[in-house]
């Protein structure tokens, strides 16, 4: 019962700012609304007993990516906070497409027989993730470092092209 209440509160904390992100006329306010949305997602991770992922969500998304997005917006014309219309002439068609997608997703989610995993997550989240990284998923671990290197080099090449 308490968990249901927590889930409802966290869902509201995630979805209402998300609605503000896509409808706000002020770009900086839209970016700012991302932060409570990310924190809500972190709370949902906690409800799923994934503490480590929740901590990473707060640190990376709310602490790093939101900062990056805010920097970008404030360095461009959106930083003046001038009103931006977040809609165009194709609103009706867009709305119909969104409704169709929602219907399809709901049908999919409600009709699938989701298999429940046996047991629960190990209490020592971080140790379990660490062991998995270093034994079963070591290739993914090393390749992710290459992916990070590639994205760093790529981003720097693009950002400095005007020099």
């Amino acid at each position, binding site marked *: 019962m308490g968990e249901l209440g927590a889930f409802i509160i966290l869902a509201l904390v995630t979805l209402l700012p998300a609605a503000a992100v896509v409808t706000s006329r002020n770009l900086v306010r839209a970016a700012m609304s991302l932060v409570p949305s990310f924190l809500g997602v972190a709370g949902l991770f906690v409800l799923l007993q994934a503490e*480590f992922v929740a901590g990473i969500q707060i640190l990376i998304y709310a602490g*790093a990516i939101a900062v990056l997005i*805010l*920097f970008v917006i404030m360095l461009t014309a959106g930083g003046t906070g001038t009103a931006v219309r977040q809609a165009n002439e194709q609103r009706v068609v867009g709305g119909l497409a969104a409704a169709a997608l929602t219907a399809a997703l709901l049908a999919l989610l409600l009709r699938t027989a989701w298999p429940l995993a046996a047991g629960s997550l190990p209490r020592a989240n*971080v140790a379990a993730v660490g062991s998995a990284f270093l034994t079963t998923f070591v290739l993914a671990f090393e390749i992710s470092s290459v992916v990070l290197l590639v994205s760093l080099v790529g981003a720097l090449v693009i950002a400095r092209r005007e020099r």
Partner: protein
Amino acid sequence: MSWLWEIFKATLAAVAVFTFLALVGAMLGVYLERKISGWIQSRLGPKHVGPQGILQTVADTVKLLQKENIVPTNADAITFNVAPLMAAVAGLLAWIIIPFGPIFGRVVIVRDINIGLLFFIAMASLIVIAILLGGWSSNNKYALLGGFRSASQMISYEIPLALAVLVPVMMAGTLSTVGIVEAQRGGWLGIGNWFIFGLPGNRWLLIPGALAFLVFFTAATAEVNRVPFDLPEAESELVAGYFSEYTGMRFALFQLGEYAEAFAMAALTTVLFLGGWHGPLLPGVVWFFTKMFALVFVLMWVRWTYPRLRLDQLLHLSWKGLVPLGFVLVLVTGWLLI
């Protein structure tokens, strides 16, 4: 309905910690800062209000409470008000995982979260957003520039902070603060097992241990925007940086957030490197506060000893100095532990 009782206990704990922070962190901290600055500069500091000037900050707070509420024109009112609240709350939340020491056998800590250290670093990174929004929402060139500079500085020093945290984590094998302090139990006079001196079986670890302590303390000083890293709020540079337009109580809330974070960093340094509450004869809680206040004194001492670093020197120190050093320390610790 036990969760209702837990919520009540949590509320009490929150009120207690917030009051503790407001009294010790903000009021005592500001008073100590002014007194210590005075002594270092061969003057007396506050003396008139109360015995030896102890009530000075109380008087200042009462003054700030009656200042007029001014919001600059064209400032974004919602963001303008949210930013100091966010800074104060993030500073408060960082104290959840700080263990104060054993009283009647149980460690006094709000909650010993499993991922305690990760949570602390996450709270430190939330303050960056508060500062950026505060600088932008003031509709003031100086404030925006100060916000950018402060945010750049704080994010640049988060990497060395996290890397230096990895060294005691490797030596203890846990992210929980109580676990890390417990791993430093015992030893000669209760001091020998502190992580700054390495591990009892492996004294070579003193080198990465002590260096990680220095890296952590330097990064922590930069994280809380204190001299020598206080360019973003230097009076001679940018008026007051990102809080130029904040008056009265909102300014006090930003300051509360900063002082709470500074004390939390000092507390975490003692937990990670100086053995937390371990020490010879005196009870644990006394040792913890002694070490924490000793580090706060060092923070204030450093303020009047070193000149301010320029922004590019500051960023070079982090990216070209502390980050490579942090990586090397992590690898060396790993190699020495084998």
